[in-house]
């Protein structure tokens, strides 16, 4: 019906765009990371030819990730923050997604709209709102003083890890709930009835049917938010701004915007990408599987 060459011609501009502005830039990171440093100006000299690669920056960076190394503690801290934030997202997000998917009844559509809403309020806007609330004179502290829960409330916004973790949760939990909700919605309701019919109490039906069937949904949703969390630098900067709470993203940011060491920054970016490669691969597989299912 259509000439054979038509579809590749349609795809070509987009594919070229992605090659030029996604693949090539990624190669630029590799080139800078394995490049040298100009002896006079201390600026990076990228090496585009793999045969000319200089492994100094890379090996130094990798060594930094060993216990006791330069990045060891920041790496631990990042992992710790992300892990705790993920756990909180799970503990709050799962019940919410479960309720909206299973029991919301008539209020389901309004709840869905309310859950989608934060998606479309800029992340930075939400962080601004958070900072306003937690500022020394903000509502949270006024409330704590007024109710005498804490007459001398803590300084939330200066190097407080609790704020950073809560900030991450607040920022990313909408992206966790929505895909999880979609996964829970896909579970056939008659499976739960079957479980109840076979003698499972509501909680047994949940633990033996809903939970195992939503495992991939939880995993997918966790990966979706873990990826940007690992690369986050703005959240710790906004709600804390202290080196005490900085994450890997902050370290990369500093190498480019604070110090003249882009080659180290590039190496660090590369290490982060490699570290996240498993998660990225998992996410890509789930997306393409969903697309194949839509196609079928």
């Amino acid at each position, binding site marked *: 019906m259509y000439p054979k060459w038509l579809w590749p011609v349609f795809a070509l501009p987009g594919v070229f765009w992605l090659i030029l502005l996604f693949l090539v830039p990624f190669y630029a990171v590799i080139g800078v990371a394995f490049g040298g440093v100009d002896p006079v100006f201390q600026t990076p000299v990228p090496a585009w030819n793999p045969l000319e690669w200089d492994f100094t920056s890379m090996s130094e960076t990798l060594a930094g990730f060993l216990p006791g190394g330069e990045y060891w503690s920041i790496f631990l801290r990042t992992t710790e923050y992300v892990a705790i934030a993920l756990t909180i997202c799970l503990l709050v997000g799962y019940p919410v997604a479960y309720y909206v998917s299973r029991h919301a009844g008539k209020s389901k559509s309004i709840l869905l709209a309310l859950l989608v809403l934060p998606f479309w309020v800029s992340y930075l806007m939400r962080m601004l709102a958070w900072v306003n609330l937690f500022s020394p004179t903000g509502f949270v502290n006024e409330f704590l003083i007024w109710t005498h829960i804490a007459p001398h409330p803590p300084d939330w916004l200066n190097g407080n890890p609790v704020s950073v973790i809560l900030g991450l949760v607040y920022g990313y939990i909408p992206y966790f709930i929505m895909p999880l909700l979609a996964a829970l919605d896909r579970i056939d309701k008659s499976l739960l009835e079957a479980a109840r019919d076979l003698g499972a109490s509501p909680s047994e039906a949940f633990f033996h049917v809903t939970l195992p069937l939503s495992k991939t949904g939880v995993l997918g949703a966790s990966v979706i938010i873990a990826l940007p969390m690992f690369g986050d630098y703005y959240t710790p900067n906004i709600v804390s701004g202290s080196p005490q709470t900085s994450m890997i993203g902050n370290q990369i940011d500093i190498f480019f915007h604070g110090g003249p060491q882009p080659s180290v920054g590039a190496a660090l970016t590369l290490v982060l990408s490699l570290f996240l490669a498993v998660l990225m691969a998992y996410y890509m597989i789930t997306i393409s599987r969903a697309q194949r299912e839509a*196609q079928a």
Partner: protein
Amino acid sequence: MTEAVVRSRPVTVRSPLRRFLDWARNPWGRPRFLVLVTWLYVFVSIVPVLVAIQFSFNAGRSVTAWQGFSLTRWYWGDPVNSVWHDPTLQSTLFQSLKLAGLDMLIATPLGVMLAIGLARWRGPASGPSNFLMLFPLVTPEIVSGVALYLVILYLFTFIEPGTIAQVLGHVTFSLSYVVVIVRGRLFSIGRQYEEAAADLGATPWETLRLVLLPLLMPAIFSSLMIVFAISIDDFVISQWLSCGAGCDTIPIRIYGATRAAPLPSVNALAALMVYFTLAALGLAYLLFRFMTRGERPGQGGHMVHGMGGGL
């Protein structure tokens, strides 16, 4: 076996106590704990934003203490510090709108063609291209930001950091979203209409223009609006490719202001962004509904999923 049935299943009359417990547990009703958690979450997720918007209408200079209502002061009323009169705030507003507009106009047609091409092209390079399209969706923004920053610094040196670089960056990450949305629509409409058109004597060009394009319109419109929304919300790519104060966008400005002592004008700026985004999405939703009216329910599902699930 019937004997066994009777023995293994002693049946007792339900006592009033059991009846009460059954009622309290409400076996057919909603678990009360979940109701509480859900509405609490909704409250916590939305109220701070509403409070921040509220302070954009503060009559005073504080973002934490309410000093009376002023509809216009921080939007355009204040001759020095309002969004409209403070040149740095005004320029960020225009920069954001400019980027979002250009992104919309470039990424949507490019993405629509890419989606159609990728969905139908069966060749040796189609698999890898499909794979490539997914990368921007899963790559942490900081990695994309660093990569684009380095490539214009050391390789594409003819591009300066600034508006053009920012647009290129925005289009790169928007493209995949357009592909996902349009592809969903492509699969839900199938090939039958085009086959019917060809059967009725339409040339390939006529089929594309008179059948496929109109059928894709709802997806194209939602793509336009969603690209606008994600572009105006973007912080990381805009920041890494910024030329300094002159190409700051609203999110960059908010980022800079939160650590300083912000005025309600920053809240007003952020609130404007929320209005724009919600207006774009509301429009997208209404247009989508309007354009797919009469189709079987459920076909619009990918719109919601495109907007929420999986992305």
